[in-house]
């Protein structure tokens, strides 16, 4: 029995309840930062007391009966698979609150947003800590309503539909997931994930395993999301506010892929073996589809959303290989995607806030000159996301492809070689769309919009429709940034002016560039990264570099756990 996992769930829950107290509500963001910082400290403490000598075992368990009538036990614990995700969740939530401090939500009602995000954190952490099938399901469901409200109340113009689509899709997924979990329960007679994983499927008939894997896999695939069940994702990401997009991409998608690693594959090995070729096929279809869809996107946030479909495709491909290497790669890619895409969405939000649009054509080029910090960080994040060796994005995808190169003995090798080839093609396409995006947005001349008289941009001319599209919008354009920037001071912000989040970071701030604003055209200067933003972004940058240069930091924790999940039957 350990109090740490309980505290990880209880602290944000109590924090959310306390936020209803009027005195707390007045300084809601500060309260949110305090609570999420406390959770982060707890998560780091969890990582500190974790015994790295035996990461394959469940540690710091707590196991109490909750609802005997349902056989539901309050069983929490952590092992090498869940530990990185717990820390990632605590970190991203904390960073979101830091971001929130500098960017009060557009819809107002900051107190409500703080409560919602804290409840969201309860569900996310609980999902990664739960060791009881139904408890996992309960936490899996906890995130739905808060995320719905994050999108529906604080989202963009199309928020209502995006939010409804999000919750209906994901609930359909979880209902099917529940059926699958109950099939496992009826067959095996227990809800204890540790016991179920230890049995490696013995006691569950093959046909029932296939059925249960199908139901559980479908449920998780909606969340992950797997092509073709991904259609809720682009809308949700595009309409969600920055913090919503970050948590959605950074953590919520991981809940789906974590379910594969924790439940579907270890508990139902025969079902997994039977359906892995399908999983792999849909995974590579997702990789190819995501990359191609990205090439066609004009909206920055939408493009990042589609890139998530591709990246999660690699994660699923890693799982489908059913080898320790592939699973390791999937888990690594999971964490890396959380860090990188979290950063990307932070940056996309920053861009959208400054320009008033995330439309790549209307953004024009030259961001590196006008917003050097934002522009270079965006470049960094994109390069990390496309899988440059030396950064975190590389290892996961490489290991996933390696897993597909030598899949488990039960699987057809030629088929997986084809998958690997398609996946490899996907990496090339991924590089293509990110570089294309960078060439359009960060490079080139600092022209805010394409002017009718101006020469067509070299980058934009790659897409035939691009130079023509913005023409009808031209008259409104000079007003757009100013109108959308209402809360932002028109003058460049001086260092330290905003500064609650660290003086060291503040020193780097305020390099607001006026170069971008061409004199005589009435343009407002843009404000470069603020202290709050840098405080939220730089930890992610550091971790991306750390895991890129030293992947063993993560792999050492996950490898033994993965081997135990797959059981001794499958040789590495």
């Amino acid at each position, binding site marked *: 029995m350990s109090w740490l996992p309980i505290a990880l769930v209880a602290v944000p829950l109590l924090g959310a309840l306390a936020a209803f107290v009027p005195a707390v509500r007045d300084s809601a963001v500060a309260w949110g930062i305090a609570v999420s910082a406390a959770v982060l400290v707890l998560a780091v403490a969890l990582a500190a007391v974790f015994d790295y000598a035996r990461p394959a075992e469940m540690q710091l368990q707590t196991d109490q009966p909750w*609802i005997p009538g349902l056989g539901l036990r309050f069983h929490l614990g952590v092992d090498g698979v869940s530990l990185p995700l717990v820390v990632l969740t605590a970190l991203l939530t904390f960073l979101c609150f830091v971001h929130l401090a500098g960017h009060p939500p557009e819809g107002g009602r900051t107190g409500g947003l703080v409560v919602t995000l804290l409840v969201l954190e309860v569900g996310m952490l609980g999902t990664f800590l739960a060791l009881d099938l139904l408890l996992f399901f309960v936490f899996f469901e906890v995130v739905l309503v808060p995320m*719905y409200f994050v999108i529906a109340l604080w989202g963009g113009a199309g928020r209502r539909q995006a939010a409804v689509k999000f919750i209906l899709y994901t*609930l359909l997924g979880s209902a099917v997931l529940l059926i699958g979990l*109950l099939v496992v*329960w009826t067959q095996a007679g227990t809800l204890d994930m540790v016991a179920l994983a230890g049995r490696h499927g013995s006691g569950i008939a093959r046909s029932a395993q296939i059925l249960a894997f199908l139901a559980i896999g479908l449920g998780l695939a909606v969340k992950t999301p797997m092509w073709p069940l991904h259609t809720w994702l682009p809308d949700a990401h595009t309409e969600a506010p920055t913090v919503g997009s970050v948590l959605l991409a950074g953590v919520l998608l991981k809940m789906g892929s974590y379910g594969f690693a924790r439940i579907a594959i270890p508990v139902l090995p025969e079902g997994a073996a039977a359906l892995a070729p399908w999983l792999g096929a849909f995974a590579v279809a997702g990789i190819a589809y995501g990359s191609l869809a990205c090439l066609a996107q004009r909206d920055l946030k939408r493009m990042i959303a589609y890139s998530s479909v591709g990246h999660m495709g690699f994660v699923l491909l890693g799982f489908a290989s059913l080898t320790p290497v592939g699973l390791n790669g999937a888990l690594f890619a999971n964490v890396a995607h959380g860090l990188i895409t979290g950063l990307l969405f932070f940056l996309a939000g920053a861009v959208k806030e400054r320009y008033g649009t995330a439309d790549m054509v209307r953004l024009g080029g030259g961001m590196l000159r006008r917003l050097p910090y934002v522009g270079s960080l965006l470049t960094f994040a994109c390069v990390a996301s496309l899988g440059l060796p030396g950064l975190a994005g590389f290892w996961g995808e490489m290991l996933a492809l390696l897993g597909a190169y030598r899949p488990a003995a039960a699987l057809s090798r030629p088929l997986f070689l084809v998958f690997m080839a398609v996946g490899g093609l996907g990496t090339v396409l991924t590089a293509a769309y990110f570089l294309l995006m960078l060439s359009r947005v960060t490079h080139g001349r600092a022209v805010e919009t394409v002017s009718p008289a101006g020469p067509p941009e070299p980058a934009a001319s790659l897409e035939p429709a691009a130079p023509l599209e913005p023409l009808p919008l031209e008259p409104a354009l000079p007003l757009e940034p100013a109108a959308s920037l209402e809360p932002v001071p028109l003058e460049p912000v001086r260092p330290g002016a905003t500064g609650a989040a660290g003086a060291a970071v503040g020193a780097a701030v305020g390099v607001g560039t006026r170069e971008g604003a061409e004199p005589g055209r009435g343009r407002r200067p843009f404000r470069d990264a603020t202290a709050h933003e840098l405080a939220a972004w730089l930890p992610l940058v550091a971790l991306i570099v750390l895991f890129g240069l030293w992947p063993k930091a993560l792999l050492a924790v996950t490898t033994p756990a993965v081997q135990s999940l797959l059981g001794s039957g499958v040789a590495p």
Partner: protein
Amino acid sequence: MTGGGVIQSIDYAAVAAPLVLALVAGLVLLLDAFLPARPGGARLLGLVTLGGLMAALSVVAVQAASGGTRRTFCVPASLGGASAPGQAATGQAATGRAVAASCSFVADRFSLVIAAVVLAAGVIVVLLSMTEIATSRDAGPDDRGRIPAGEWYFLLLATLTGAVLLPASRDLIMLVVSLELVSLPVFALTALRRHDCRAAEAALKLFLVSVVSTAITLFGVSLLYGVTGSVHLDRIDAALRTSDGMTGGTAGATAGDMARVTVVAIVLVAAGFAFKIAAVPFHFWAGDVYQGAPVPVAALLSVVSKASGFAGLILLLTYALPGKAAVWAPGVAVVAALTMTAGNVLAMRQRAAVRLLAWSSVAQSGYILAPLAVYAVAPRAAVGASVAYLVFYAAMNLIAFSVVLLVARLPEGQDLEAYRGLALRSPAAGLSLAFALVCLAGLPPGLAGLFAKIVVFRAVVDGGLGWLALVMAANTVAGLYYYISWTARLFAPPAAGESRTVSARAAAGVAVAVTVAVTVVFSVAPQVVLSVSG
């Protein structure tokens, strides 16, 4: 307990709860007639009613705490049922159940649980009624639209007497009589607000539907009696089992005919109860009646009437006809699937709050019905899951109706648009309703609803009805659509100029607080429900 001879001895302790209610009903009528007409009179009557319900509730609690099963109105084995065709041939020793005396009134765990739910719901309905009656008095200077308090509370208590009697009934006549006692006062209650066309229409509709369903039930009952020669549920079961046993042997056309008549009887009786619980295809009345009736009566219909309808159906199917589960279980599965689907589809398009709740409660009936479809595989779990869902549903639904009553008192408060921004204008009412709606949708933080759904899903999956589980999964999503859009409306910015708050009238405010507290307890410790229902 059981008299040796023909004269029955009555165990008054067993029938204490319905007795208390009936006596208080008479007392209310007397008080109304003889008390001077003062402004506080209606309130006093409400409090007396409340006191009566509390007394009955404590009787039920004491009976539950003392454990055991109390029986009364028993017929010894030597009397009655001797003419049953099967029984005469094989002798009474053929089945152990026929040897013991058959009782018409049995206060066992099932009946006590249903009685407790009905009485607790009755307390909430009385609290809502106090607000409704006070409002109707404020409304106009003359008698128009005014609700007569004495009659109202008398009728309410009469309904509740029937509802407490019904789950304890163990013979067909008692079952039908108590079902009528539940139904008849409700017509009058619906129409009691005079000069209200909608209410009159609703009352007439309810009356016609109910009369037809009673007629159908009676026809089915008479057939069942004809086939088995008994009205006691346990004897019907025994007679059907022995006649089933005989079909193999002596065979003959008569046995086959009897089996067919039995099927017709089952269908007819079940159809009668299906009207009461508004199951497809007998669900059409729900929308109009709920909307036309005063909100407390709608709450009564959706919880008390429905609970008694389900209690009657469960008694009939599982006490009298368990041997015929192979006949009725597939039908129940299909009806459950159709009911939840039709309810959800109809609820999606509604613009009036009560009407939406009406169809949503039809959909919820489908979930309550679903576990009964696996009765043949796992009898205990099936009934337990149905009852558990009923208890959870009663608590969640009553929150919604309590808040709806508060909002409906605003001008144009019937429309869903009146709820825009309610959580900002009146946080307590808005958050309570939001909680109720996510509970009904079955999503956290409404854990009560989530666990209720899990219980039902578990029973259905365990019973091997995969297709029904998939239909339920799809329906959960369909239900979420309208629940969540209503919830979102509560938090949306209010329309310009809209700053009306709901004044938490003491009684209805208490009702909201009590139901929310109960549902929160059910959310955190659902074992409370599961241990009594299982």
